[in-house]
């Protein structure tokens, strides 16, 4: 056990306590949390700053408005319903089409109008929000993922999580939904995480259930050495989110739409540490290096370049 501890230290793995004490507590001001915890606010900030996000079809804020759902979605075959304060992908319903007055859920089930309304009502009552405070439901554009991910994704949309420290990307991974994760992109729910080399945008290792894997468990396709499209643009986009909300330690989730390119899906003030497992590499060295910088470059583009530079050096 002591050996494991030493090895983890040597590998520069950041533990939860260190993340909380040295990075989140020091760099993330509590008052800024609502900006990322409320997806509606994040979206509005992003739109104002000219950052691409999935289009918002409508917001349901009170129980009474649930009846407006058909009006909001009538011009869209597919859409996503999500809680504004949800976390970890909970409470998100992805509707991929409508058949015989039923909504087609991406997990294969058909939902009646009533089912969907009950789900929204649950969202409003705070079932998915942290601490259970009342919530809003967002209805937005369903991302059509870049076909390049077809072979390594099951049902859901892969997203690319980047940890950004003081505006400089530190580590990145692509999260690939599996049958086990029910189309969700959360590692602890069974999604596959594949580390991305920041300099090249190529996937490196992959983990599934904390074990290294080479192939996607459902499709069997190879995951490694996979070029993420629009990589440089994506990295700059992640860096840009720092200015957007001002959080020093930030998780940025981006999806790649086949027509619209990278879209910022959500931001996270307490991103998890599994990204290290996916990358097969601890973040400590880069975090410490950035921590000791007196000043960071002003432009997002420069910070993204610095990140790529650091990736080669550290």
């Amino acid at each position: 056990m002591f050996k494991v501890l030493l090895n983890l230290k040597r590998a520069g793995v950041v533990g939860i306590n260190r993340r909380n004490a040295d990075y989140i507590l020091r760099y993330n001001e509590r008052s800024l949390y609502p900006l990322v915890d409320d997806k509606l606010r994040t979206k509005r900030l992003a739109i104002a700053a000219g950052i691409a996000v999935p289009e918002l079809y409508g917001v349901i804020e009170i129980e009474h408005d649930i009846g407006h759902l058909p009006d909001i979605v009538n011009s869209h075959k597919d859409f996503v319903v999500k809680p504004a304060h949800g976390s970890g992908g909970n409470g998100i319903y992805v509707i991929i089409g409508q058949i015989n007055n039923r909504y087609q859920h991406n997990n294969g089930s058909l939902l009646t109008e009533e089912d969907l309304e009950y789900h929204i009502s649950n969202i409003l009552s705070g079932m998915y929000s942290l601490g259970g405070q009342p919530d809003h439901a967002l209805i937005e554009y369903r991302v059509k993922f870049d076909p390049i991910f077809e072979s390594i994704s099951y049902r859901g949309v892969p997203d690319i999580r980047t940890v950004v420290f003081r505006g400089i990307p530190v580590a990145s991974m692509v999260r690939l939904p599996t049958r086990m994760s029910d189309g969700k992109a959360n590692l602890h729910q069974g999604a596959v995480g594949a580390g991305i080399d920041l300099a090249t945008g190529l996937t490196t290792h992959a983990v599934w259930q904390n074990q290294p894997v080479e192939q996607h468990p459902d499709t069997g396709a190879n995951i490694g050495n996979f070029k993420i499209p629009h990589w440089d643009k994506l990295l700059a986009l992640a860096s840009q989110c720092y200015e957007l909300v001002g959080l020093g330690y930030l998780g940025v989730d981006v999806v790649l739409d086949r027509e619209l390119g990278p879209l910022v899906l959500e931001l996270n003030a307490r991103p998890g540490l599994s990204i290290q497992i996916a990358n097969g590499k601890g973040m400590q060295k880069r975090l410490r290096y950035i921590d000791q910088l007196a000043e960071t470059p002003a432009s997002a583009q420069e910070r993204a370049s610095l990140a790529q530079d650091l990736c080669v050096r550290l």
Partner: protein
Amino acid sequence: MRQLHLLLLVIILCAAGLGLAIYKVTTLGLPLTTSEKAEVWNVEARISFRAKPETSIKVSLPLLFNPSGYTILDEDFVAANYGLAIEQDDNARTALWAKRRAEGKQLLFYRAILYKDTEKTIDSVKAPIYPPIPEYPENFRPIIQGLLDKARQQSADTVSFAQQVIKQLNAASPAPELKLLLEHIHHSRNLAKGINWILAGARIPTRIIQGLRLEDGKLYSELESWTQVYDGKQWRTLNIKNGKEGLPSNFILWQIGDQKTFSVDGGSEVSLQFSVAKTLRELVDIAESRAALKGSHLMEFSLYSLPVQSQNVYKILLMVPLGAFVVVLMRNLIGIKTFGTFMPVLIALALRETELAWGLLLFCLIVGLGLLLRAYVDRLKLLLIPRLASVLTMVVLLMASISVIMHKLGLEMGLSVALFPMVIMTMTIERMSLTWDEAGPAEAFKQGAGSLLVATIGYLVMNIDALQHLLFVFPELLLVVLAAILLFGRYSGYRLTELWRFRALAKR
């Protein structure tokens, strides 16, 4: 900088907490372990007499004065309608009771509670004046002279001289020439006085000390007398019966010298009786009294000054930070997942109402049934707060039925379930079912088991009697707990479970 600040704070907290506790242990004698009891002696002097009519009454009684090796924890005087004054000088204390008129039999009491102290008081020795040779009656003079001469021949110093005198006076078959003298001494019924009177013939300074042997349940009609001779440096105590030197260890000195004596004016059929009884008292009480004697106000602000009911509440409340500390260790150091942060502490508190095994069983039973019902209610598609309220109602009904069924089965433990805080149960059911929905049953069970494990450890820690006692008597020790919690607040190392979680990274 921040680290230094924290470190200083931790040191200050530890110093304050431990310092105060150590002061209370060493100076006030508060016990470190649970319900330590110590022997205390109740010594009582009972004066009874019949009041003479038409006469004012005055009673004087020498009181305990600095009994070396003992502390007087408490004293009280019981005498109906008598005026009481206490006279005190360097060597003695006397109680003076007075009453103008009284009728019939009178009873006066003086009671003292004594605690054996380790610190011996050393009495300052003032060299006494060497007494003049008394004017012995004509017929005794040669007898005493002979006795003293014989003793001088057989002794080396003052003490052995006095011992020889005592031996001769107490011999089983005394020399015939002493017969007259002995009769005279026994007539006055005061052997000690007689010995001192004879020793004065050799110009040896002497004095009488009086006291009691502390033997449980003993009654004395008078104080026991010992004689002390001055050997030029200090007073040496001699037994007047056999001349042996030294006081027995259980002897309390009541009075030095015999200038102040017991007397009753205006009474007949006077009797004075001493009784001694041993009782056990909580060391805490003793410490409290001693603190008061030493003029320390610390004990007045202890939790013991609260009403007993509040004391019992604090006995539990003071343990809660320890439970919280267990949660800190289990979560931040080991990394066990639980429902909520302090749910385990609440469950642990709930477990106190039952027993551990029963508590866990009942908890699992109620939460399990609650989950089933919650799953059913979920199909009715209720809003959040009505749903919580309905789960709460079901929990109460479940608790009631379990109590009734167990009672019918003759399992009395089922009744204690009623004390199981139901809101805790409801919240647990709700959180567990949410976790179930969101992260799957595996995660729900993992967190549920984690909560129960932490609650069990918390319960076991909070139920350690020794710790309960320590925190109640020394609440300042919570400062030390606080310091430890603060230290863990800056612990940025790995959690134990992370060694497992990141094990793939450690292999590279």
